[in-house]
């Protein structure tokens, strides 16, 4: 069970957190102006690397804050970003 460091509450066990997928996928500024393909890419296409990955997590059982986390998808080593 991973120990994830919440930027506010410090290290807490994995089950206190909610996974939010790849980080940095912003909601498009003007969705209506996007082609079907561009919108489809926003909706459905995400990176799935073996190794280092930047992800969003929410400390849902704690302070309810969302934050970005660097995680190695092979070793589960985690670290904060920046």
């Amino acid at each position: 069970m991973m120990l994830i460091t919440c930027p506010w509450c410090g290290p807490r066990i994995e089950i206190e957190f909610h996974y939010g997928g790849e980080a940095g996928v912003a909601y498009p500024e003007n969705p209506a102006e996007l082609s079907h393909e561009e919108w489809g890419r926003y909706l459905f296409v995400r990176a799935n690397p073996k190794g280092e990955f930047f992800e969003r997590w929410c400390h849902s059982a704690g302070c309810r804050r969302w934050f970005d986390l660097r995680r190695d998808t092979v070793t589960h080593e985690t670290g904060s970003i920046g």
Partner: protein
Amino acid sequence: MSQPFRHGDGDRIDRTRPLTFRFGDRVLTGFGGDTLASALLANGVHEVGRSVDLGRPRGIVAAGVEEPSALVQIEAPFPEPMLTATTVELYDGLVAQPLAGRGLLSSEPDPARYDAVWAHCEVLVVGAGPAGLAAATDAARPGQRVMLVDERPPGPGEATPAGVRRLSRTTVVGYYDDNFLVAIERRTDHLGPAAPPNAARQRVWRIRAGRVVLATGAHERSIPFPDNDRPGIMLAGAALTYLRCYGVLVGRRALVYTTNDSAYPVADALRSAGAEVVVADTRLGSRGVPPAGNPPAADLTGARITEVFGEQRVICVRVGDRRLDVDVVLVSGGFNPVLHLYSQAGGRLRYDEDLGALLPDGCRQRVDVVGTAAGEGLPRCGPPPLPEPSAADSRTFVDLARDVTIADVRRATSAGLRSVEHIKRYTTAGTAHDQGKTSGLLTSAAVAAALGSSAAEVGVTTARPPYVPVAFATLAGRDRGDLFDPIRITPMHGWHVAHGATFENVGQWKRAWYYPREGEDMAAAVARECRAARTGVAMMDVSTLGKIDVQGPDAAEFLDRLYTNLMSTLSVGTVRYGVMCGVDGMVLDDGTAARLGPERYLVTTTTGNAALVLDWMEEWLQTEWPRLRVWCTSVTEQWATVALVGPAARGVLARVAPDLAVDTASFPFMRWRDTTVAGLPARVFRISFSGELAYEINVASWNGHALWEELVAAGAADGIVPYGTEAMHVLRAEKGYPIVGQDTDGTVTPDDLGLGWAIRKSDKDFVGRRSLSRPDTARPDRKQLVGLLPEDPARHLVEGAHIVERAPLGPPPVPYLGHVTSSYFSVALDRTFALALVASGRQRIGTRLFATLDGELIPVEVTGPVLYDPKGARRDG
């Protein structure tokens, strides 16, 4: 003579404490401190069962958790299958049975208590041998929590170092991310009937450690030779353990068969205890030179066992050209450092040619390996020697627990398998209770020989948790019965129980399902409850609905972005139904939004989605719209809510809310009012989920029970009826109101549900809007919510039933049009009806389709989803 093979005082047994036990049909004795295995051996019993596939007699091979074959079933005090005799501590009255490979699960619930605790330490030492004790002593200092965990019972005179918390009879079974380890403590078994009834039999320790020291020792390996599975053939080190720790001489005429120097002291010790011992060393010449000191020399060098005589017990072996009469063969094929936990932690292993063993080679986690587990003190040893290929290969075992032979391994490589992981799955070698602790490298050596490779190149299979078998009851712990999952209840729950309600689970909530009266079945009770709501007055506990307080200067803008319809245009005092979509345009949840003030709303969610919707709101606020000044707070349990429903509801409310003008003009549909109900501060909403005149009365949850009782009393004159979720479902379905999660499944858009009217006309974006014009979501043949009326008004469709176009079905593939999502009997319509998602459903209204039911095709008429009061004439009473 009792216990004829006892010899001297083992340092773990207490000869003043005799114990009686049963094994099969024999009544035997042992001593306190014995394991079942040591007590059996003391009585001269080697054979304990039969193998799983071949049914061959099997005996005791080892003296600890690595035991591959001595499986027993414990019958009393509680049946427990597949325990190794070498790890069962003897107690007075123990009843065990030999096993033929498989145990029998008890059909009775386990009466024992199991629990789990969390623990934290700066240093965790696994293994309390010399290296572990030294590491714990070293680590102990003020302010540093050191835990020392060992699988054995505490040994006599073993002192726990000061400042160290020691757990005995505790096996670390898993090593997970971030130095999280799970251990199982066996707390009461050794006490037998003396165990305190309130004590947990086993405990799961969830340990988070700053640093881990593995002092887990090594397991001796066997050697493959024909019929190497006969009872009486055991590991040399185990024989020494039985002699020294348990005062048991495992045999009187022993052949010690070894590939390395470690077995010589064993031979010496057995000789000193009076046994005749012949030592056969597989090595030739200088490598066969025994260790320094005054050891006995090898009697035979370069010798191989080629034949074993005796089935239930070894009686004779052929070594080279000699035949030896023996009662035990003690083998040592070298040692495997115990690195299962290290591997689980992500540690790498390297093959050491000198030791013929895998050693730790670095790990990303904070873990050190010390002592024998790191290879310290292990004898020089080559890889396990294999016999020349022969017909006897099908009796030459690499894995006793799974009956896997050299011939099986060769069959796997002949089939083209190369990876040891694939061969494991093909042959099942290493997949038994022992995970191949004594045999793993034998399998690898056999694979290497078959492929013309080396054990170093072939490697071993990945060790996975648990290190030893763990009972499901232990893992379940206290999460059984009512504590299996939280049971969430409303403030009125006690009333529902006292009044005979039947409950249904909605997520973790217990909700009153219906309230049967004397002699009523479910259908009768639900029909009565529906009739009351449509013709008189009925009341329901709807406290479980999710409630979120949304406030801040941008609250209106925020809700506009999340709901498909506009919430900013609501005036204070009014309520609006709203639908939320995911970014994919599919319905996420629905509910109402009430404007409490210019900068404050109260929104409701479905019972099951309360947490999800709050998370959803926070996600958008924090990650996409941080400039919006909005705060969301769950108030689900701040409020208890009662729905008061039916044409007579207004009269009942007027009686308990004297300050509230209840007439339609003063208090129209979709409005809310703050007032006093039954003397309690209350907020009343005029909303309806049944199509009838209805109010939802909210009070602080601690007043919920009082409100409920007051409404029961105030409605008595009108024959008020409490109703449950089943009647609620019928009433809403008659009106075509969908339930998110029942009539939707994450692939349904608002328009599919006929909620196109709830999508705003303005251009302003909302989450999911762009998806509604994607080619797939705009397809005309999407599944749409419709009503279904079976042609036989008594036929009840099954929820989930498939909808097809024609009967008979015709040749496959049969086009599948959709499925039934809700199905009930309607008192108001005096017939059955259903809701369904059907491809191009709205175009099919008025046509005939078929619903499947146990192979039958039921003809149905497709209708609009609103079957009762389509004009909405009833909502004002």
